[in-house]
């Protein structure tokens, strides 16, 4: 670059002297100190009130935080979250694939599903699944207008737990389907063309080439949805399902007339589970980020004797 003004410099002259490194006086940031002090003061005030205000009743929180009913409630809440999300993810992958299908009937049914389940409140859907045995007292499999193969009483097949998972999972699948669709669309068309040119079949291209790369885009909002689901499970009393964390802590609060400490118990548990889920999400993101995130460029190597001479130009750069 300097050659324009000072004439030609050779690498050996320019490259061998280590220059004196710059040690500049940094710009001062008084605003950072002022805002820092204000925030610390507020935090101290809040913390102090939490520990000195007797109405928090931390003793009651301590008593109930590991209460058997509460811990079981945590277990049920987790189970509902996991089962609903698994159901939702399986359905969402299917729905997203259907939406991209060449078959117009599959495309429209996928659209219709999303329209119904996203377009009505999850609370309404949960009540609906709770009442399904009123709507259809018996579920039977058979040939239409022909013999019946087997049948169940609906209330045996769809108990409160199943109804809760169905209600939460089907509703969630509609949202996740859109997230998956966005993920699939984010993968460059060239990836599909390259795979097609190699003679790969559509389903293989989806599972092996497109979906793994779409996951990079799909995982963060899905983590968001999972954490959302954790808290949406508190609506299952609409079914009614009465074993989850919110229902249990609410009924304990009603029994003891101590709503605030029991709300804190519930809040602490939700926060703990959310934190664990966030750790999990971090690792899933890392896995699906391979080939894209946190990559260092390939190390620059001096040309090896093995490399053909004609390739040295590039290997040495």
């Amino acid at each position, binding site marked *: 670059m300097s050659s324009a003004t000072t004439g030609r410099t050779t690498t050996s002259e320019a490259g061998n002297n280590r220059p004196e490194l710059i040690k500049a006086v940094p710009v001062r940031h008084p605003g950072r100190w002022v805002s820092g002090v204000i925030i610390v003061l507020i935090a101290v005030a809040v913390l102090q009130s939490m520990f000195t205000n007797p109405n928090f009743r931390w003793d009651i929180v301590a008593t109930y935080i590991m209460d058997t009913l509460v811990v079981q409630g945590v277990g049920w809440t987790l189970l509902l979250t996991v089962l609903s999300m698994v159901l939702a993810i399986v359905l969402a992958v299917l729905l997203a694939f259907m939406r991209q299908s060449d078959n117009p009937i599959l495309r429209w049914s996928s659209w219709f599903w999303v329209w119904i389940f996203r377009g009505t409140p999850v609370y309404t859907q949960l009540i609906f699944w709770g009442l399904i045995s009123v709507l259809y007292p018996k579920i039977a499999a058979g040939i239409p207008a022909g013999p019946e193969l087997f049948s169940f009483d609906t209330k045996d097949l769809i108990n409160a737990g199943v109804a809760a998972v169905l209600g939460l999972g089907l509703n969630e699948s509609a949202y996740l389907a859109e997230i998956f669709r966005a993920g699939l669309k984010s993968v460059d068309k060239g*990836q599909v063309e390259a*795979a097609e*040119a190699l*003679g*790969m079949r559509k389903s293989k291209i989806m599972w092996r080439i497109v979906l*793994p790369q779409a996951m990079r885009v799909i995982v963060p909002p899905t983590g968001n949805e999972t954490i959302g689901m954790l808290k949406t499970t508190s609506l299952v009393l609409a079914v009614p399902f009465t074993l989850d964390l919110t229902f249990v802590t609410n009924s304990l609060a009603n029994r003891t007339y101590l709503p605030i400490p029991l709300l804190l118990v519930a809040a602490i548990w939700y926060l703990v589970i959310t934190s664990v889920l966030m750790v999990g999400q971090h690792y899933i993101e890392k896995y699906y980020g391979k*080939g894209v995130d946190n990559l260092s460029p390939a190390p620059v190597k001096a040309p090896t004797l093995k490399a053909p001479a004609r390739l040295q130009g*590039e290997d040495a750069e």
Partner: protein
Amino acid sequence: MSVETAEPLVRFEGVHKFFGENHVLRGIDMTVRRGEVSVVIGPSGSGKSTLLRCVNLLETISAGRIYVGDELIGYREVNGRLHDLNVKQIAAQRREIGMVFQKFNLFGHKTALQNVMEAPVQVKGKSKAEAKARALELLDRVGLADRADFYPAQLSGGQQQRVAIARALAMDPELMLFDEPTSALDPELVGDVLNVMKDLAKTGMTMIVVTHEIGFAREVGDTLTFMDAGVVVESGDPREVIANPQHGRTKEFLSKVL
């Protein structure tokens, strides 16, 4: 057997292509013999990439016929009527044809080695060990044995394109299509890719190369075809065509790129 006397491998017969109202290929007749390096040049929008993409069914033709070997591409002719091939048959035809893209299109979530192994394992059902050995051999052939475990994002454009060539070769195709393989590369990386293609030509691979590299056409090409506005304007021995173009449009184009 010299290329001039070899049997034809690819035949375009009156090929037309419409994108809606846009008539991009207007009756292409062209033959590529076995072992021939057929270089196609032309201004952008001349239809040369579309022509290439029709050979392995990334586009479907609107009229005419394309044959590779004895096989009609994309259709089955029964009693004078054409029937669409099903996905399985299309995939089978594509397996015989390797394609190299302008933008490399390496699978971003797979290492160079995994990129090359993918199709032999998933499409041909080769064992992983066998596919790996062959992939390493191919990576060595394109000068990238020491880059096997790197992801595409860690490789330069020239290296990515050489991996892409190895990936296409791993399927042992009888025909290789190159769609402007050096157009997205920094100038100093072009040479490495062209060298790999030259070596490939020496092995007797049949190649159709859409490119702007006139030097490559002159040095390696057996035929040079100049396309403009969806038709073949002229075609012949590359040295002849470049030194002594017969048509005004060819002259004009060559004067701009040479």
